[in-house]
């Protein structure tokens, strides 16, 4: 009798658990689909609209004058690479160094709290404001637009994301690892660079990629800095073309031909971002050992 009632209770519980379990996983799957759906939709729509205008010319030629058909965005692709290269050159080392300071040296100090607060505020500054600031700081004194100023604007935009992720990732490294290094007679700076930062590197790299992908599509900070350029230029002292700028200019133009090129440009921009992120991830995880955590 006793066993029987227990069995029944167990049975009811079983169904309740079955339902709750499937409800929870159903919700999780649904949320995932909702999150991924717009992304897939954007990509598919870009392929639908842009792929037909893609050809070799798109990657090898510069824009043609209005009325003349054909032409490409080769200068904008190279320009974007130059701008992102300059931006990363500035943003990655500064961002990582600031993150190291926050997590390893300034921990809890007043300067660290101030820097952390500034980084969070900087993260929320609209990108157009960043463009105007760099315009005032670099473009006005130099009296001309330049790739350099565009790179600086993108670099500054990368810093807060990189700094904060670096800090978080370093704080996740267990203290026992730091003690192990110090206990071996390793100087603190060396331990920070070769042990703590290395242990946290997968997360730090993710942070850098996040920042990179974010600024790769930025138009606003480039409007007043890199300015755009319809001709070939790789000089950091000249105005330079950039994919987002070119897309912007073409998209708001009245010409159908340019609209098609803008779609193609958007597709290329997304593919380039995905490829470069995947490439960095591949290169940096190649040497990971069996059983490494």
């Amino acid at each position: 009798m006793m066993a029987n009632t227990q069995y029944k209770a167990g049975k009811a519980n079983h169904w309740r658990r079955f339902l709750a379990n499937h409800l929870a996983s159903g919700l999780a799957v649904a949320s995932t689909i909702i999150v991924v759906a717009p992304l897939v939709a954007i990509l598919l729509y870009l392929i639908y609209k842009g792929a037909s205008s893609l050809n070799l010319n798109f990657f090898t030629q510069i824009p043609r004058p209005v009325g003349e058909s054909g032409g490409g965005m080769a200068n904008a692709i190279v320009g974007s690479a130059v701008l992102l290269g300059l931006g990363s050159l500035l943003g990655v080392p500064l961002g990582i160094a600031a993150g190291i300071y926050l997590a390893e040296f300034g921990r809890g100090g007043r300067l660290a709290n101030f820097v952390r607060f500034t980084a969070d505020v900087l993260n929320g500054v609209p990108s157009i404001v960043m463009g105007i600031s760099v315009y005032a700081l670099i473009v006005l004194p130099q009296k001309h637009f330049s790739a350099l100023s565009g790179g600086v604007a993108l670099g500054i935009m990368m810093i807060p994301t990189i700094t904060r992720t670096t800090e978080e990732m370093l704080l996740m490294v267990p203290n026992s690892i730091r003690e192990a290094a110090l206990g071996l007679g390793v100087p603190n700076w060396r331990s920070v660079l070769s042990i703590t930062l290395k242990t946290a590197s997968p997360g730090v790299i993710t942070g850098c990629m996040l920042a990179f992908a974010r600024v790769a599509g930025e138009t606003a900070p480039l409007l007043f800095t890199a300015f755009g350029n319809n001709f070939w230029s790789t000089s950091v002292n000249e105005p330079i073309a950039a994919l987002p700028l070119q897309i912007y200019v073409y998209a708001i133009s009245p010409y159908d031909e340019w609209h098609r090129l803008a779609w193609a440009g958007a597709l290329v921009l997304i593919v380039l971002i995905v490829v470069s992120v995947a490439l960095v991830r591949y290169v940096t995880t190649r040497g990971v050992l069996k059983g490494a955590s």
Partner: protein
Amino acid sequence: MGVGIEVKNLNAWYGNNHTLQDINLHIPANQATALIGPSGCGKSTFVRCLNRMHETNPIAKVEGSVHIGDLDVYNDASPVEIRRRVGMVFQRPNPFPTMSIYDNVASGLRLNGFRNRRVLDEVVERSLKHAALWDEVKDDLKKKSGASLSGGQQQRLCIARALAVDPEVLLMDEPASALDPVSTAKIEDLIFQLKSQYTIVIVTHNMQQAARVAERTGFFLSGKLVEFDTTHKIFTNPGDKRTEDYITGRFG
């Protein structure tokens, strides 16, 4: 060869907490010395004062003198130099997770700028043999991460890593407390063998372990060294009532 350790009037604080009070003792060379006592009695703080790890905590403070051989630990050298001469093994195995077994053992030398491949190979092999781990790992030295080993193997890896920088003293802060009995027995065997070359100070909660491995034993209570004598004397005929109470399990 190991060297003796002379501790005089050692006091240590964490913030306002006076965790070590007037410790005086002589730890003889080439022996294992066990430190026992209830949790929070200061025995871990004490070993951390010997290699100046205590001061890595910003609120920590130390006074008094420690001599290791003829080296004045708090006046003659930087903490970095001290820690190269005084190796340390921690309670929880802490191999560097991103490094291979080989790199873990070589890390102490490499991170101090030592690069000679052939010598590194030799040191790694010798240290792993010393730590009784060589036969288990020699085939995947560079293939496997140190973190992929079992807990007991990881702890022996950490011992090998400490031995690779050729210290004179080996501090072990409850090295077997996170390990199963078989791994514990291996670590204890190891302590027996290492004694001939190093001076060993081992903190332990396990009194049988102290009795098994150590020539001398010190009993700490509330930041004071209550009694320090041969292990045999401490466990058979302790001079202090509190020591007797502790080892017979009457408090704690």
